[in-house]
């Protein structure tokens, strides 16, 4: 925690608990590989499965932070429910459809995308490097071990989580319901077929390219 010069690699020193560190490195690698694979994979089913891989990695990271409940929820809800839903949709649309990602509508665009994303992350890393993070400020939800004398013996994480969901984050928790309601209404609206009525009469001098409308299902997933 000594605020050192920028390239003072103190944060890279392997801490006392090597197991923790190795777990972090390992699961972080899994998360990253999975995430990259979601984007790179041609086969949608494999892409969805790569997503599961990422989510598992995140769950392991949660466990490492002693957020066991969150880890379980992560597996059950995301890996269990949401990815399965994805897979259903993919199966309905046809598994054999492969997105040909080699064909480029815009020349050079991929290169720029890689470059810019790389620059973003390099920038973020550089900015983060040597900055004081963690900062010693306790989290709003309270620490897991109330009693420093007996580490790992105090309040279970479910209790802390429950407390903060119904106190500090009560409003956020409740307002999420509005978000879900609007998402459902939106999905219904988008899935509905258009009825009869006046059709658009576009101006002649449109410079816009006429392009095919995206299928509404895509938006609602």
């Amino acid at each position: 925690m000594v605020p050192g010069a920028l390239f003072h690699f103190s944060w890279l020193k392997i801490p006392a608990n090597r197991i923790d560190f190795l777990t972090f490195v390992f699961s972080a690698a899994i998360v990253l590989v999975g995430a990259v694979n979601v984007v790179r994979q041609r086969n949608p089913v494999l892409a969805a499965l790569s997503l599961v891989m990422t989510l598992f990695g995140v769950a392991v990271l949660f466990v490492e932070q002693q957020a066991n409940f969150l880890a379980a929820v992560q597996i059950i809800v995301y890996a269990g429910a949401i990815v399965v839903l994805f897979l259903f949709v993919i199966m309905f649309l046809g598994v054999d459809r492969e997105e040909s990602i080699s064909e480029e509508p815009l020349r050079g665009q991929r290169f720029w995308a890689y470059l810019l994303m790389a620059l973003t992350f390099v920038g973020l890393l550089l900015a983060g490097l040597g900055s004081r993070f963690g900062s010693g400020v306790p989290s709003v939800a309270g620490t897991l071990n109330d009693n420093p004398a007996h580490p790992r013996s105090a309040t279970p994480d479910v209790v802390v989580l429950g407390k903060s969901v119904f106190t500090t984050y009560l409003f956020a928790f409740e307002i999420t319901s509005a978000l879900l309601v609007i998402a459902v209404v939106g999905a219904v609206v988008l899935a509905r077929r258009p009825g009869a009525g006046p059709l658009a009469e576009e101006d002649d001098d449109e410079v816009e390219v006429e392009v095919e409308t995206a299928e509404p299902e895509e938006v609602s997933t």
Partner: protein
Amino acid sequence: MLSHAYLIPLLPLAGFLVLALFGRRIGEPWAGWLGTATVAGSFVLSLVTYGALLGRTGSGREVTDVVYNWIPAIPHSGFQVSASLLVDPLSMTMVLFVTGISTLIHLYSIGYMDGDGDFPKFFLYLNLFVASMLVLVLGGNLLMTFVGWEGVGVCSYWLISFWFGRDSAASAGKKAFLYNRVADVGFLLAMFLVFERTGTLSYGSAGGGGFLGQAASLPPSTRTAVCLLLFLAAAGKSAQFPLFPWLADAMEGPTPVSALIHAATMVTAGVYLMCRIGPLLSLSHTAQLVVSIVGVGTAFVAASIGCAQQDIKKVLAYSTVSQLGYMFLAVGTGAYEAAIFLMVAHAFFKGLLFLGAGSVIHGLHDEQDLKRMGNLRRYMKLTFWTVSVGVVAIAGIPPLSGFFAKGDVLDNAFAGSLFPWKVMWAVGLATALLTAYYMTRLLVLAFLGDDRWKAVVDGGRAKKDPHESPWVMTVPLVVLAVLAVVGGALNLPGHLSFDPLRWLAPVFGPGAFEEHLSGSSQWVLGVVDALVALVGAGVAFRLWSRETERPALEPALLQRSWYLDEVTDATLGRPGQALARMAASFDTRVIDGAVTGVARLTRGAGSGLRRVQTGYVRQYALGITVGLVVLVGYVTFLAVAR
């Protein structure tokens, strides 16, 4: 009466509203009479108000009339502006001649616009213009003045492009608008600066709590900055170098508009503004120097251009610019009375000249080319005589008003104590020579010589004989001619900036110059002025009464107004357009355009178009990411630099 000054602008405004709502139903000519009546009403009102004002003495002559609290004081910010009117000799002088001339020109327009499809609309705009102009001169603070300033600007834009069917009229309107908006930036900045430094925007000159009262306590740099910023605004509105090309183009508007807005009233708003901030301007020598140099320079340049123009209205337009330059010269030398005097006299004779030109144009069925006129005195006697009076007046031949007014300005320039002033007097005198020259040229070409208009074949047959205009058009001519003759009596010489009625006291306080001219030197200067004017007129008469084509005397440099438009276009217009095009192509060409091209390609190749659409989104996401990278790069720089 003084507390009812708000009725003065309100009356034309009421006329405007009635015309806006029922104009088409009232129709021609009653819409015109209604407009004239409201403006005449406010002229009478201002006469009464002026009388009441003259009954007072000293600082009692400055009455601030708070109509209502526009923006009430807000705690902590201190920003408070009330819709107040400042009634003092300066503003009332302006109000008197604005309403008076407007009445005459309204009357004239009834005849001139006769038969135009948009007759009521014309008076609608004209009334709104008068109302705005009155707000401008009566406004008790910079913000009120600015409201009127914008109002007259917009009206001028509408009226210049009144015949927007003509492309030239439409583009002239745009040009005027753009030049004025550029200048308005100066006004706004000056307002901020004034408010920031003094906490108030109201004028309140002598200890009235306004910023002019605090002028002496301001740092010199602030005084200079405020004056120069306001001068930028004034130079735009009053068409001073290099912002004058719009005024020549503004002649595309109907002639009464040129007479009212672009000769008599609106263009003098800049001079008025500089006079209004006189107490501040007098304290900044830099600003005075800039104002007088720009003024005298403009006067000379515009006069030289006027010598080579063929369009009768263009000659008058450049003459207006030149006379406005004289007024700024007077302002710069601290002779505010002289500036105001010239402004009033100029309103008389230039209004007269424009109306006379309008009468000629009307009589010749929309012919504006001087080279296609000639010998009109036989057909339009009244117009000829009145225009002659105007020409003699503007040329500065005694004893007409122009001689005294211009003499006042030149005397002050001569008497100035700083070094460059004498040079300015010389340039001013040269300009006076040019003025007499080009005005006589105009008179000779239009009214004397052969009937050249007969040779002009129009659509296969010769033009009809010119005819004299109806009485509604000639009455204003006569009235203005009388005023142009006797206007000099308003301010007879004998004393430098002699003020027999003390009619501008106490706005400008004691004269800016300690150094006064002796009576004899004034006589000498007066004789010099008169001689110069006679020489100019004589030369022009000799040169132009026989011959109408003298290319050597009309070089392209002058005809194209010193190539100022071209220079502006090259230095500002083209890069500006290129910039807009570049910015547009960033969006439309690089992004949309690339995609459009690709879309055609893919469409031709027959593959799905859906990819193109995601191409759009990808491209946009890429753009957003560029922004992201730049921001992150910036904070990284901050973090590393620390």
